[in-house]
């Protein structure tokens, strides 16, 4: 009898354990955000998201934007994450072509200008933009008594011979953005001639932004000797924030006529099992809190209308409302050819 009773109790307990519990509150979910190495967000901001939704976010960062995207494409059948952030307009058509995202129209998109919403199907959602522009070292130009160049044409003038460093578009995202700026400016028929002139004018080519900015740029970390560099519109405020003591004026200026718009997107991966949670993350990334946090973390500009910018940005960041740009589909179509032609014109 006793044996039977014990058996009955055990079986009941097992049955009870096996019954799916009706959750009173949402069970804790962890989603993975795959991104590139320049990603940054405040701990408090992400913690707020977790508090609000109960969803934990694990950030997996590896490589630069292109490499990270390619890793996601490579693993699309057994993905390593639930959402991907860091895709920009130069890679957009590749990502969409690979079919790695599922569409999601965030409710927050109402606050985002249409110019940023490059995908009508909302497979990707714009989060920030950063303009790739030519930066100049103010101190150098004033002490050498050379006028600051104001247009792309200026850069071919003898006064600026050997004073410009650019990045290789084959290996550098800002490098590619600048090349596309010239394509946008001079068109298919004229951009190669422009570059031939730049080459004749002693333009220095290096492989990456770090080398250009920290290695060659006079106002970078490494005491280079070139006062004009392809960098970002956010470099002037960054130079102020990341200096000790913080100068009253930014030592760096931006040549606005050279700016090319880069928009960065996030997307929910097609094969994720945490669709709802990933979507909540996307919404959150468009929220005021996240958008306001971005400038000082990633040195990019928010896409959400009316997001307050930090003081150092409003003071020192020069932006243009008319940046150069090329439609994403056109980029996708011609990108490889442009890089090859650029290489032939400039390097060979």
């Amino acid at each position, binding site marked *: 009898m006793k044996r039977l009773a014990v058996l009955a109790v055990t079986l009941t307990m097992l049955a009870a354990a096996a019954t799916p519990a009706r959750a009173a509150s949402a069970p804790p979910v962890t989603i993975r955000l795959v991104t590139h190495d320049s990603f940054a967000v405040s701990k408090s901001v992400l913690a707020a998201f977790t508090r609000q939704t109960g969803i934990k976010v*694990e950030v997996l960062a*590896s490589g630069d934007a292109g490499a990270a995207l390619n*890793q996601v494409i490579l693993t699309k059948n057994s993905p390593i994450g639930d959402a991907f952030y860091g895709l920009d307009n130069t890679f957009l058509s590749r990502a969409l072509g690979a079919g790695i995202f599922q569409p999601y129209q965030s409710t927050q998109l109402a606050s985002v200008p249409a110019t940023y919403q490059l995908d009508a199907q909302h497979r990707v959602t714009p989060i920030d933009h950063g303009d790739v522009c030519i930066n100049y070292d103010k101190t150098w130009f004033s002490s050498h008594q050379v006028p600051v160049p104001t247009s792309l044409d200026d850069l071919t003038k003898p006064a600026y011979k050997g004073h410009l460093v650019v990045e290789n578009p084959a290996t550098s995202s800002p490098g590619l953005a600048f090349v596309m700026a010239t394509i946008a400016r001079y068109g298919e028929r004229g951009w190669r001639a422009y570059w031939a002139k730049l080459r004749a004018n002693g333009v220095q080519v290096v492989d990456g932004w770090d080398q250009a900015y920290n290695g060659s740029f006079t106002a*970078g970390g490494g005491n280079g000797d070139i006062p004009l560099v392809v960098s970002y519109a956010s*470099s002037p405020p*960054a*130079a102020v924030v990341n200096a000790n003591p913080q100068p009253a004026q930014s030592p760096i200026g931006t040549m606005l006529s050279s700016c090319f718009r880069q928009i960065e997107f996030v997307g929910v991966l097609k094969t994720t099992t945490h669709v709802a949670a990933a979507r909540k993350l996307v919404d959150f990334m468009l929220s005021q809190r996240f958008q306001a946090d971005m400038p000082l*973390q990633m040195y990019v500009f928010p896409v959400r209308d009316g997001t307050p910018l930090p003081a150092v940005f409003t003071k020192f960041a020069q932006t243009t409302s008319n940046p150069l740009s090329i439609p994403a589909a056109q980029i996708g179509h011609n990108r490889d050819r442009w890089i090859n032609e650029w290489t032939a014109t400039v390097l060979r």
Partner: protein
Amino acid sequence: MTRLAARVRRVALVAVPLGFFGLFFAYPVGSILARGLAPGGHVDLGPVGRVLTDASLRGIAWFTVWQAALSTLLTVLIALPGAYVVSRFRFPGRGLVRAAIVIPFVLPTVVVGSAFLALGFRPSLGAIVVAHVFFNYAVVVRIVGGFWSHLDPQQDDAARVLGASRLRAFRTVVLPALRPALLGAAAIVFLFTFTSFGVILILGGPTRSTLETEIYRQTAELLNLRTAAALSVVQVTAVAAVLVVVGRAEGRHRVALRLRSARDTARRARTGLERLFVGTNLVVMAALLGAPLVVLLARSFATTGGPGFGFYDALGHLHANSVLFVPPVDAIRNSLVFAGEATVIAVGIGGLAAVAVARGRRGRFLDGALALPLGVSAVTVGFGFLIALDKAPLDLRTSSLLIPIAQGTVAVPFVVRTIVPVLRSIDPRLREAAMTLGASPARVWREVDGPIVARAGLVAAGFAFAISLGEFGATVFLARPNTQTLPVVIFRLLGQPGELNFGAAMAASTILMALTGAAVLLIDRVRVARVF
């Protein structure tokens, strides 16, 4: 029964390293190559043909080969006297010099590249070669020097007494004895320079590319897996060919040598010529290896308003509220832990492999196979991991276990090449003597091979540790849930504008240098106790 046990032991010796190699290298690399060359299920070697016929790609392949050959030759020529000085002469600070030599090896190329540029180098073939010598000096010194310190000095003394000049004695007595270690070191330097990435990018400039940089571009940037796979095939074939040639040259020369304890073979420089020799080499080391390091060091203290610890301070606070920020102490701890794990893996697998290699003819195949990872692009391996290791229980793609595995895989060839020459020179009769005194085969290992090899094993461990500390190429492709190592922290800092970011990167580099020096010094100091 013992015969069966012996057989099982022999099989395990080869099977374990091969299994490791198969799982964490051959399988991932095979997967990614298959993606590129057999997309529909059947193999299409068309891309390889196209690569071989494309003039510019052929040019790239050729440049890759001869810059590596030139770099290897120069490294060996410059580092060989250094190896001699460090392993055979006693001078004040010797231990420090031995440890310090390894530091360049550890530093991320991005950091060193900028130091070279600061020293006035311009992107050129010369800069590439000098940088390669800088990085690989330690390889020759540690591998050849480690073996050299065991050679009986009486042998070349005997030659000198018989009338050979110093140089002649060196050529006819010492060089043949050193051959296996020399070939092993040269092979590794060649592989490293062949697959050199950061140095080519930064100090070669955009006009120079090698197979490695092309593979990176095709794989990571363009996801053009077909061309990338074709290039990888060319790269692996070239590497395998080199390994086969070197393996043949090494294997032909099996000399049982009289080995001395390393401690006993070093002596103070006696004659004026010797002192000049030692002094010159120390100066070369200081200039070649020290100058870039000093630049880094200086930069880490060059805060506005005079030298100070501002950048070190910034390192701890700069992005402290950012989600991907890792406090420097944690980064250091992560680096050390991964390095420790990788060393255990490398010495374990490499040790087994070394025994298998030293034993038999088939061992040479194992040796070559295990060295292949050095010759295959890190990007190929990294991406290979992504598509191969994606099913449980092997879904290690986001596991931090993959990092020491990748690092350990790179270190295994070093361990093998450091230990094998010493193992091979043990007179088999020494083992027989132990046997006749009652030592079972396992005991013979413990009592004879073990202590003799232990010194070499420690050299290997120190090296493996340093490799892991500075390893960047493979780990940059592995998604890391916040287990950043120092090189990754440095890399991220360099990607942001502002002098504090740059300065903090310099500070972190200096910490990395100090950490490596200390770790290697400690490992070197572990004495193989003189037991009864």
